[in-house]
């Protein structure tokens, strides 16, 4: 298994993925022929310096952006071949995304932000009520649910963003530097929450980070440099 993990069945397969951006007369290759596989239940960290292309890779893997070429298969579904509608529905049901800058909707309360994925996927109330209670309790935001994002601290906002990513019980979670904007204590807390929910919900976690101490906790580590992805620790 190339760049693979021998722990379980393959949930994510990445083949020859290239992502380029055109800037006037030059082309920047953000991801250059990425090839790897991720197995069910794995925690994979992707490290790299700023501008190395790791966030772009994460966006492409999560189906938030399209690669220029290559194939990405998630749970046996080739997401690179899906149309935008099917991909959106697929994302809603199987993928959770945590953005670096939270990306909470400012005019919605914390609770409304958390429930956005349930609304988008037409989940009936009873299907997530219990899960929601556990989630907000675990993330310790139960008392902040009716506050607007602007009334929450950075750590609380990130926890709301994590709850939003997990509310639909995704099988795979993509986190883009979830602790990047947090102080050390908050960063550790958020990471331990993520790892705990990963274990409880048997999720696969793919995290972009430039923090080596966080990456050390991953099952495998990849490093990106100028768009090239290489395994740092198998």
């Amino acid at each position, binding site marked *: 298994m190339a760049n693979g993990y021998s722990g379980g069945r393959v949930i994510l397969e990445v083949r020859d993925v290239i992502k380029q951006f055109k800037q006037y007369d030059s082309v920047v290759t953000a991801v250059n022929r990425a090839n790897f596989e991720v197995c069910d239940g794995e925690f994979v960290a992707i490290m790299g310096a700023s501008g190395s292309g790791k966030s772009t890779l994460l966006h492409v893997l999560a189906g*938030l952006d399209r690669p220029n070429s290559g194939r990405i298969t998630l749970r046996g579904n080739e997401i690179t071949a*899906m149309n935008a*509608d099917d991909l*959106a529905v697929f*994302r809603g049901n199987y993928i959770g*995304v945590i953005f670096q800058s939270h990306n909470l909707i400012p005019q919605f309360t914390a609770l409304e932000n958390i429930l*956005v*994925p349930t609304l*988008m996927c037409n989940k009936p109330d009873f299907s997530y009520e219990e899960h929601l209670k556990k989630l907000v309790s675990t993330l310790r935001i139960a008392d902040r649910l009716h506050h607007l994002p*602007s009334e929450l601290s950075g750590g609380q906002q990130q926890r709301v963003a994590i709850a939003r990513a997990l509310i639909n019980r995704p099988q795979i979670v993509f986190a883009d530097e979830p602790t990047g904007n947090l102080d050390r204590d908050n960063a550790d807390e958020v990471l331990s929450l993520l790892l705990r929910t990963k274990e409880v919900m048997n999720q696969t976690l793919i995290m972009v980070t430039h923090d080596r101490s966080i990456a050390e906790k991953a099952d495998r580590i990849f490093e990106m440099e100028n768009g090239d992805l290489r395994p740092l620790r198998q």
Partner: protein
Amino acid sequence: MAYRKPYYDENHRLVRYGPVSFLRDAWNFSRNFFAFRNVKLAFRGVTTGFREYFVFFVSIFLLQTLFFTVWLRFDTASAVAREEAYSGDGYNLTVEKISQEAYTELFNSYLSFAGENTPADRGYEVLDTEGYYDGYGDRYYRLNFILTDDSIEFCDAIVSRYGLDREEFTVSYGERSNYLNRISEMKRKSVVNTVLVGVLAAAALTLLFYIRINQNKFLYGIYIAFGAGFEKLLETAWWELLAVALMTYLPAAGASAGIYSAVAAAGGAKPVFVWGRLGWGLLWTTAVVALSVVPGVRIISKKMPVSLITAADNSNYVSSPRVSFRIFGKRFPFHYELFGFVRFRSYYIMLVSAAVAFTVVFSTGLFLADLKKTEAEDNRPYFTLSAGSGELDSYDIAGIDDIEGVDYTVWSKSADATSLRSFVLLTKEQSSGITSMTVKDPATGLYADNNVRYSRLSELLAEEVTSHGVWKVDGDLAAVAAGGDTVAVTRSINNRDVLGFKVGDRITVATFREQGRPLVFDRIDRKYVLSVLLNDAYFNYTEVTVGAVVDDGDTSDEYTVYMPDALYAKITGDSSGYTDASVYLERGIANSETGRIRNAIVKIMSVHRGYTVTPTGEGYRRALAQKAGARLPLITGSAAVLLISPLVWLYAQSAFCRKRYGEIFLLSACGSKDSDIRKLFLFSGAVLTVLAAAATAGIGSLLNYIIYYLVNVYFPSMGFGEQIRYDYTFSPLGLAVCVLLSAVAAMLSTYLPFLAFVRDRDRIARVESGE
């Protein structure tokens, strides 16, 4: 059959299991789409975000008001039409020219048994019989029916049932049956207007919704990132706009009722309200809203979430060093801001289009309201008479003139040049507007044309049209009628002045003499016939002088050469007396009076075998009345739509400015003074002002001319609508109002949000920094 879930095959195609699966999918879709949660969220969203949706509230309210007004007008007009038809001595069916013998036979064979049945069985409630003598002393009868059903179909059924469909009888439908046709015509127009208002509403809301989407890319990006596909986005958008529409619905119905009651009261009519229209209004609103959101949602749903989430900022300041260099290497803020116009070109195009669309509706509304008939058209004859095989004499004309309600009668006689194998030869200047219809005559170098009618100009006709001001005359019409080789000519074809005749011009009339070769006409179009004649026939030529150029109000596809009696006889070979006449009614005469006048004319005309009395002016008169009635609603409606334009500007530009707050703080941090940033916004406003003014003037004028051409030239030439001639009444004031409003709205909507920013700078800074 058990339900099996659809799945994606190895080629990523969705595989469904037959109709049960499809129905189940459809059921699931409907259940999700119409879930109460959606309704609740939509209502909450638009009420809590009222400011954000304000422009939608106003626009939808005004458009719904227009819808209700169209149907209030129809319901009131149809009630008036019905009242007119049923007042006085209106009938459903009149059968004339029934000889004594036929009359006896009819009553013995067909009508006798009917008298014993109830009206429902025999099909009529009243049967009036009138007897009269013709000029030869023969006894004739006229039967007038009031039927149990007003439809034309029922009239036809009765005609057939009672053996009234004989060739020698003249059958005509009365007011009571015609009014159904009129209502049907009015209904057709109302439906067309409803569709037009619907298209306008859908287009306006589509543009507004697109602006909203553009300003909320981040929100939609998050929705899509967390599972919203086209269906979900459509559902959300549709419910939001429908919630707005439902909240404005009853107020719009009320406003429409109020406005139309005032309008109707001013015209002396009583408005008629039909409750069923509320249901249709709801359906219309639902459809319009659905149409409005689909394009925007379709576009946004195809975008990748990352591109939407990262496009949340409208700043001109971009991270690319090369672009920044390009901006800051130039003069600030002008080049900097111009770059923004290029970068956000699709937004600005949408904004200007949406805002200008509403102002253009106003200028077009004014234009339509001011489209008016020419003065000559005021005196179009109401009845056209033909004496059949006989000739009209001065006793006939005097008799008809004496009928109460008749203003005057003029006799006429005309012949089509093509049917006489004749044509006229014109100079290049005279025929420059009809070059495509003419054929160059190689012998003379002149342009032959047969789109012409020859008409007899009697001294009586010349005197009547001059004394009543029916025609616009340039030259001496009386001198033409007096005789000699002078003629009077018209200059318009299909309502357009296309012929370059001047008083004193010479034209040549060619009349068929003999054929040189057998004439074979493979086609019947005039130009082809003319080409064949020019090649294969010989003609006599009569040169005449144009003694008068007249505008007789004719709207047909031919122009007319009016000739004195002797010249007419020479050109057409017809020296018989007058067979036709036109009857002009007194101004302001009620429609209900026309039936009586017609009966009186028929009595006089019945001395001529094969006579006809045709109410040629009836439809025209009604069309004019309708247009006059439509004027005030048109002006009010379009003025209401005009109000939407500044709202669009303010809505879009406020939202756009909000997304530039970060940029403004950044520019301030980099050393830009408030006066520099003010210049930036003023410059942006100035550019938009010029764009908006130019677009309003250009699009407004173009649209007006297109409408004028359609109603005045194209539709009549295609046989649609009444043959009414309109003047091109360009309203500089209306256009100036539109241009000024667009310009002021563009400038203020750009500058005021900046002033609001300056006022609330501290609060905005706190929000921006997340404190």
